């Protein structure tokens, strides 16, 4: 047997704690001060635009934080809102026949860097927020369903989909009326959640958990 293969074989039986640590690892990118300054500047520009667009009639949307620490620009938002992509024929989902199903949006997320939500926080990705902003009025809000993927965190660490904690959270979401499914791929499983505008913006968080929703087609499939 080749020496390298002997080494490779011996890695199989390394301590479970190291394997678990590696499989559950979710990096939180450390951001430079310039990223933070850029983020604050971008937020101010977006806030200014929102005030300009909606004036005093803008009502508070929800208690959900955005969780965006990365670079985002006004042009991202503007471009995204002008595009008509990401809608699927409603007939693809029999249970959702009455709804317009949104699974993608052309708001670029490539330059965004997301902070992991702490316990009690629920974040929505940039494209998802763009889609909500775009479609909530266009299809009278509640007639739109967003196909999302959900990451669940605890103590700032991403939980494994197969864990008991995630399992109980999925059951809780189903009981609350969210339609969920587990999608399996070669890179692992993901939680898919079909949710309306209200279900996303008034998401009922459970103590001890953090949540991050992404649009389904933000990532490669």
């Amino acid at each position, binding site marked *: 047997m*080749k*020496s*390298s*293969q*002997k*080494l*490779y*074989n*011996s*890695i*199989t*039986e*390394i*301590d*479970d704690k*190291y*394997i*678990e*640590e*590696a*499989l559950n*690892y*979710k*990096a*939180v*990118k450390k951001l430079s001060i310039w990223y933070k300054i850029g983020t604050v500047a971008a937020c101010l520009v977006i806030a200014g635009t929102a005030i300009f667009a909606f004036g005093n009639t803008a009502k508070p949307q929800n208690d959900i934080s955005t969780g965006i620490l990365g670079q985002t620009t006004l042009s991202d938002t503007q471009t995204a809102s002008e595009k008509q992509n990401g809608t699927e024929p409603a007939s693809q989902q029999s249970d959702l026949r009455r709804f317009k199903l949104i699974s993608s949006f052309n708001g670029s997320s490539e330059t965004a*860097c997301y902070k992991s939500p702490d316990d009690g926080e629920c974040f929505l990705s940039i494209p998802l927020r763009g889609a909500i902003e775009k479609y909530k009025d266009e299809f009278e809000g509640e007639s739109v369903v967003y196909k999302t993927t959900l990451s669940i965190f605890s103590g700032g660490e991403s939980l*494994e989909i*197969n864990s*008991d904690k995630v*399992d109980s959270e999925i059951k809780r979401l189903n009981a609350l009326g969210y339609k969920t499914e587990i999608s*399996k*791929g*070669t*890179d*692992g*499983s993901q939680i898919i959640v079909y949710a309306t505008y209200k279900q996303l913006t008034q998401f009922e968080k459970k103590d001890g958990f953090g949540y991050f929703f992404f649009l389904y087609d933000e990532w490669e499939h």
Partner: protein
Amino acid sequence: MDDTEIVALFFERDEKAIAQCEEKYGAFCQSIAYNILSNTSDAQECVNDTYLKAWNTIPPKSPEKLGLYLGKIVRNTAINLYNKNHRKKRYAGMQRLLSELEECIASPLSTENKIEEKELTHFLNSWLETLDKNDRVIFIRRYWKGEPLKKIAKDCAEAPNKTAKRMYRLRLDLKSALEKEEFLL
């Protein structure tokens, strides 16, 4: 269904245990086998063999962490299939991983201790303990799970070339640790 319930099904000799393993850990096991064999049908064969081995070993075994138990079985099964077939088939995944690990092998300059696999695992555990968490994570994801470097880099929020450099330094560090102990593989 949680792991305890699935293991209970194995103990009751209920075939639903296999279906539950497939549902919960099928994709995980498939990815480990595929990363070694780079062949979907061979990887699936390994996963099926894994369920059979789990069926034959539980009981008496009663793994607390079923995912890791299945992961280790599927890894061994895929390595065995590689050994059986590698003269007939080219398994790019494992060949690439082995060529990387060649860099960790010290040249036999003296009559050092010929180390056995079990001893080597024990040594690796001690070596891993000396690493910082990020380095340990990328080493295991690459050489235990066989994940592509690009995916590891993405998950670690860093550029692939940076991850590749870290991986290279880790291999050199492992080589130096093996040499220090005068272990001969």
